[in-house]
């Protein structure tokens, strides 16, 4: 073997070793979560920490799905996340279209305002929003959460939609408008169908963001009936901090919808992250 071949072999060994470390680092915590959720409670204490329990069980999932409030939390989270995703996508399509196709007075300020909202600490809105929402009956209500999450996600979604509209030639709706169609008709019938992938990506991003939100849900919701999954799980953890199997089983369930959407939007990750470079 020549020195060059040896060097190449060394390079690729290093390469795959580094890659393997990254994959392990990314997946091990999730593997462990899943492992604990399958471990019978007795073995958890008697066997100590080991890579795989001697016996596995779905009991924890059974308990979480039938004997707890988690199905309710799950449903609440689905309602909030789906409504937020749809509402944000509708509103952000309009705003993204305006930013992509028009020059208008105040555009600079609108963009500036949206950028600033990505920079300031949302946590400082917790007290005033709580005080404004209480007399309106929007605390302990899913509607209140939907309104808050919609507003928070609009700026990012607008930039994302704008980047998709920018990729569609202007001539398309101009041709339709010369043929006598109103711009809104052209927008609805020609442009929107072409942005379907963009719309799907926006729906996915916003759904995931709403599904994960914790702080405002904690503050605005105190009734179990109206709790979302993050609040339900955190309350459960602080109340029954020794039922590791059930806690982790609930955690795995919370992961499912977010991961589903992640695989749907994976193709658009780069665009999403560059559009909202400030946001996770």
């Amino acid at each position, binding site marked *: 073997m020549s020195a060059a071949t040896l060097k190449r072999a060394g390079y690729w060994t290093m*390469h795959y070793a*580094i*890659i393997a470390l*990254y994959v392990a680092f990314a997946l091990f915590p999730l593997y462990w979560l899943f492992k604990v959720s399958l471990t019978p409670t007795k073995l958890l204490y008697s066997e100590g920490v080991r890579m795989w329990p001697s016996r596995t069980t779905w009991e924890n999932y059974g308990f979480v799905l039938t004997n707890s409030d988690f199905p309710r939390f799950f449903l609440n989270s689905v309602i909030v996340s789906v409504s937020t995703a749809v509402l944000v996508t509708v509103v952000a399509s309009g705003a993204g279209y305006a930013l992509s196709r028009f020059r208008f007075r105040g555009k600079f300020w609108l963009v500036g305002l949206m950028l600033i909202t990505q*920079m300031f600490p949302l946590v400082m809105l*917790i007290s005033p929003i709580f005080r404004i929402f209480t007399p309106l009956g929007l605390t302990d209500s899913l509607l209140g959460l939907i309104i808050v999450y919609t507003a928070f996600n609009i700026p990012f979604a607008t930039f994302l939609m704008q980047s998709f509209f920018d990729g569609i030639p202007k001539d398309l709706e101009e041709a339709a408008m010369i043929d006598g169609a109103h711009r809104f008709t052209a927008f609805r019938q020609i442009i929107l169908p072409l942005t379907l992938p963009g719309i799907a990506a926006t729906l996915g991003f916003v759904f995931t963001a709403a599904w994960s939100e914790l702080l405002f849900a904690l503050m605005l919701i105190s009734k179990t009936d109206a709790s979302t999954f993050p609040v339900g799980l955190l309350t459960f953890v602080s109340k029954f901090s020794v039922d590791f199997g059930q806690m982790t089983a609930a955690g795995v369930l919370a992961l499912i919808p*977010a991961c589903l959407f992640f695989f749907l939007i994976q193709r658009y990750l780069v665009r999403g992250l560059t559009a909202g470079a*400030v946001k*996770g």
Partner: protein
Amino acid sequence: MSVQAERRPGWHGTRRRFALRMEPYFYASPALIFIVAVMLVPLAIGLSYAFRDITLLNPFSGGFVGVQHFVDLWHDSDFWQALGNTVTWTVASVSLQFFLGLVLALRLYRPFPGRGLVQALVFVPWAVPMFLSGLNFAWLFNPVIGPLPHWLYAVGILSSPENILSDPAIAIWGPIVANVWWGVPFFAITLLAALQSIPPEIYEAAEIDGAGTWRRFADITVPFLAPTIAITVLLRAVWIANAPDLIVAMTGGGPADSTQIVASYIFTQAFKGLDFGYASAVATVLLMLLLVYALIVLMIRQSLLKAS
């Protein structure tokens, strides 16, 4: 003739032109209404709370107290500790995320068998809801069910396999580790996109001229990436400083406020203390600090643009 007819000022013409001028506002106004009603108005009201005595459970509160909250803040050792923790938390999280993200992006830049799969797998943490990655790491750090204390003990970092989250001296590293795990994909994706925007011809030319791997990295990759890196890192730092989710989920700021950052301190004051006035005063200070920081970022950006 038809041109003249169109130009003739008439009720229909004016209305049509008005409608055309209003059109962008028709598309943009729902977004603007949401942002103003749910973000700007509460922001202004929140700033006013900073000068008022507002505690939720006291019906007689609400009076104007001037700068009293800020005076209290100056003497509040918990606040100063939170400020120091914010720096530790932000600098450690951002630099580790950035370094690991850069190495990963460089590994993923060139095609190799299995790249698509690896890319999908290493990006998974980013899809995990932040509170859940916090809870999960709290479990991993728990010696009863988690392996991390035992491993840290085995390699000699810990003197006994205990939960680092209950040791005030090092507890902050728990949320930092969770944050790094969660945030590496973000940097990897951003840097990968930036890497792919470098024209490959430049590398080819450099290779022909005999430049080695390190030279190519130092003389082409780094200068090309520098502006993206600077802006991404500086903006990401703001986002991380502002996001208390992991801390609230993992430690609630404890033990003994040792993991409290300013953002989680604001949340704790409002959520647990129900002291909206004081929470808003802390928030106002955080906002001022961020404004100063943003100005510095803008200045750095200007000088970067001038340099390139």
